[in-house]
């Protein structure tokens, strides 16, 4: 059993699995049960400034995308920050932290954009003995209309300013939670770093309309005939989140900045992928909202078994391990040639590879009268679409051409590494030296 103990910006937790700031972490009852289930840490649902509590809608707060078996693939929400009194939340945070010293407890915050507002709430949070704070610059709905959440997160200068206020007014570590609803995720991360952030966490939810009711002609979730854009999360957003995490991890300006990975983490494997791309830990929400707290047991056993198999003794052995292999398109090896190979023993003769290739790609698969499908190497560009549409895993594979083997499509023998930067068709190619 691998050691999953993790220290993230000085905050210790028995495993790298934290619950993200969201409905599951809105109150003591939930957080205690999450810890009992095995979660290594919790980011308490976002607190706002003292005063009349936030008001939520009283109709549906969530919209969903399902697979045909009604597996939840994506969830959208229009819930605001906590609608419970600040005093109650702070009291509960203090009690929970007192009883669960070995678990991480970070408090998410969102207050108006004045230094006094941040200073006031930071002081209150410090009194709870919480391990740190996370600045919610991400929520794309509701609070953003009031100049908070993603309204801050979309302006790097504001991120830097608020982060600096926080660092100047607290001894606690500060995590800046980033919104994905921007053009270039590196800019807000750089701003957070300039402001003194100890870490960034990402992604927050993606602005979205999940679906349209074709009878009401209104977006879903629909309240009294109207709907609004909400924050999208769940398995569907994972590829977007992975890329954003990787972009920050490999950006020279932010390299080494700790990252807490968020976005569709559902299984141990998802967590390991985020960590390989540079996340020091992960935060989970939609998966527990779908299946309950117990899933952490699978995440713990799965990550542990994987680490054992790889010989990793610490999660730090995994973190960032894939980052050096994330590169720009221009550096990909244009002389790396592969061809699709269809295993006739595994083929069930559905013909999907043929339809995909014949109708939409390179006409590189032949179909015989008795439904035998074979690759025409002289046409195959190795796009991989046949592999992706084949319902049988492992039936179609990509064969790497042997050194010196002639590519039947181009008539050229495979050669050593060469990329676009030196390609003759590239007008800006540098002359060979």
């Amino acid at each position: 059993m691998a050691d999953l103990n993790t220290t993230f910006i000085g905050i210790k937790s028995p495993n790298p699995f934290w619950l993200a700031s969201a409905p599951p972490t809105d109150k003591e009852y939930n957080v205690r049960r999450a810890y009992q289930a095995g979660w290594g840490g919790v980011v308490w649902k976002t607190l706002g400034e003292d005063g009349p509590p936030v008001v939520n809608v009283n109709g549906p707060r969530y919209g969903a995308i399902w697979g045909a078996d009604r597996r939840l693939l994506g969830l959208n929400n229009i819930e605001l920050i906590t609608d419970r009194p600040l005093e109650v939340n702070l009291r509960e945070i203090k009690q929970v932290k007192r009883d669960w010293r070995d678990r991480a407890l970070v408090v998410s915050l969102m207050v108006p954009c004045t230094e006094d507002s941040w200073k006031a709430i930071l002081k209150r949070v410090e009194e709870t003995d919480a391990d740190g704070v996370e600045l919610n610059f991400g929520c794309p709905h509701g609070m953003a209309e009031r100049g908070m959440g993603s309204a801050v997160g979309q302006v790097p200068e504001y991120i830097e300013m608020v982060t600096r206020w926080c660092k100047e007014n607290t001894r606690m570590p500060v995590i800046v939670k980033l919104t994905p609803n921007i053009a270039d995720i590196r800019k807000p991360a750089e701003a957070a770093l300039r402001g003194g952030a100890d870490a960034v966490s990402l992604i927050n939810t993606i602005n979205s309309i999940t679906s349209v009711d074709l009878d009401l002609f209104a977006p879903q979730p629909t309240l009294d005939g109207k709907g609004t854009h909400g924050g999208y999360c769940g398995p569907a957003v994972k590829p977007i989140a992975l890329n954003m995490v990787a972009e920050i991890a490999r950006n020279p300006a932010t390299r080494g900045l700790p990252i807490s990975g968020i976005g569709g983490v559902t299984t141990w494997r998802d967590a390991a992928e985020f960590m390989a791309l540079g996340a020091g830990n992960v935060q989970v929400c939609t998966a527990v909202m779908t299946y309950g707290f117990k899933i952490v047991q699978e995440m713990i056993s799965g990550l542990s078994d994987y680490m054992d198999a790889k010989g990793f003794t610490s999660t730090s052995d995994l973190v960032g391990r894939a980052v050096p292999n994330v590169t720009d398109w221009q550096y990909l090896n244009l002389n790396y040639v592969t061809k699709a190979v269809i295993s006739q023993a595994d083929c069930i003769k559905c013909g999907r590879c043929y339809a995909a290739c014949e109708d939409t790609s390179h006409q590189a698969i032949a179909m015989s009268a008795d439904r035998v499908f074979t690759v025409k190497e002289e046409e195959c560009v190795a796009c991989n679409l046949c592999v992706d549409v084949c319902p049988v895993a492992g039936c179609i594979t990509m064969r790497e051409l042997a050194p010196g083997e002639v590519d039947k499509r181009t008539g050229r023998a495979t050669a050593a590494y060469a990329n676009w930067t030196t390609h003759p068709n590239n007008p800006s190619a540098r002359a060979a030296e």
Partner: protein
Amino acid sequence: MTNSQLTPGVAAGRLDAAHLAANFADVAPPLGMYEARVAADRCYFCFDAPCVTACPTSIDIPLFIRQIATDTPEAAARTIFAQNILGGTCARVCPTENLCEGACVREAAEGKPVEIGALQRFATDRLMAAGGHPFTRAAPTGRKVAVVGAGPAGLSCAHRLALLGHAVTLYDARPKAGGLNEYGLAAYKVPGGFAQAEVEWLLKIGGIAVVSGWALGREGSLDDLRAGHDAVFLGIGLGGVNALGLAGEQLDQVLPATDFIRELRQASDLAQLPVGRDVVVVGGGMTAIDAAVQSKLLGAENVTIVYRRSQAEMPASRHEQDHATASGVKIIPNAAPVAIFGAGAVREVEFAYTRPGPKGLELTSQTFRLKADQLFTAIGQRLAGTPVPLALDGNKIAVTGAGRTSLPNVWAGGDCAVGGDDLTVTAVAEGRDVAMDIHASLKGA
């Protein structure tokens, strides 16, 4: 009620009403909306799909399943009915494991095909329950066609002809239309009066006049029909049954299995239908299975199917065989009847084991006897009644192309015509294709 499964001889009311109702309920309950969506999602939408090739009516199965998956079951039903107007019955009775589901790539991949039959029923049930009719008849052509036999072939032919604007008179010898759908299938496959409901729904196309109680050679001749119509289609099925050719065959309670099934289908109260304590069925096709299983469901204590060849050679599908054995029917393969014993009524049947020989099956010297209060024969059917003045091929009407007989303007299809494989779905395909051929012929005339 005093009778039970142990009552000697042939007796009615061996089971109480509740047991009978449960036994004859829908053998394959319909899929719910959610089940259908999950089942539909398993379809890979194959290119040039093998299931379509395997379907005698060439229904575009991947398309209709995708239409179910996208919440448009009525569009799915139109896809089905465009090829097979009796898609409702076929969804219930097709031996899908030998047809579409047997060809499904998921059968090859994991031994668990997409539930095409159940999905077809889901779609067709929805559209039929909505009332109305999915097709609109073309403007009348003024052409008249006689369709003889209101079974699957005749109904299919009549519907397509009417759709194309021809005026169809649909003759049938029995009181009700439907043919084998009404009189020949196991009750638990088409419960709830489905066969009649389907006929009524099918006739909504308009342009079809049904004449019941009209038998060819009894109420009129083929020449009469030819004189009064531009074309004639014969879908008269096989009304006669093959005999065992054994002494004792005339004993009471030695009956064609088809008679037993027909009486059961038409019985208003199954508790009044007598059945033997010991029932023996000779044969290996669907008729044998349907008679045996329903005997058991009526309360017979011991029901045995005896088939002369190996079990693998039984014409009934493996699924049907398993259904029989799961229902408590015993199957004895490789044995043929050699003698029937009894006084007044049958009491016992003697069988000899068989083995393949150089000149076909031969009897061995090993024999056994089975008690039999009833002996049902299901060893094939033949053309019945007045021989039609048409060239025959074996025991069936000879046809070339799309059901063309030796007489001009006379077509034949379904079980009575040569070819095909005695399946409902094949009869539907033949009826439809004949209709298209008649249509082409009438247009060209």
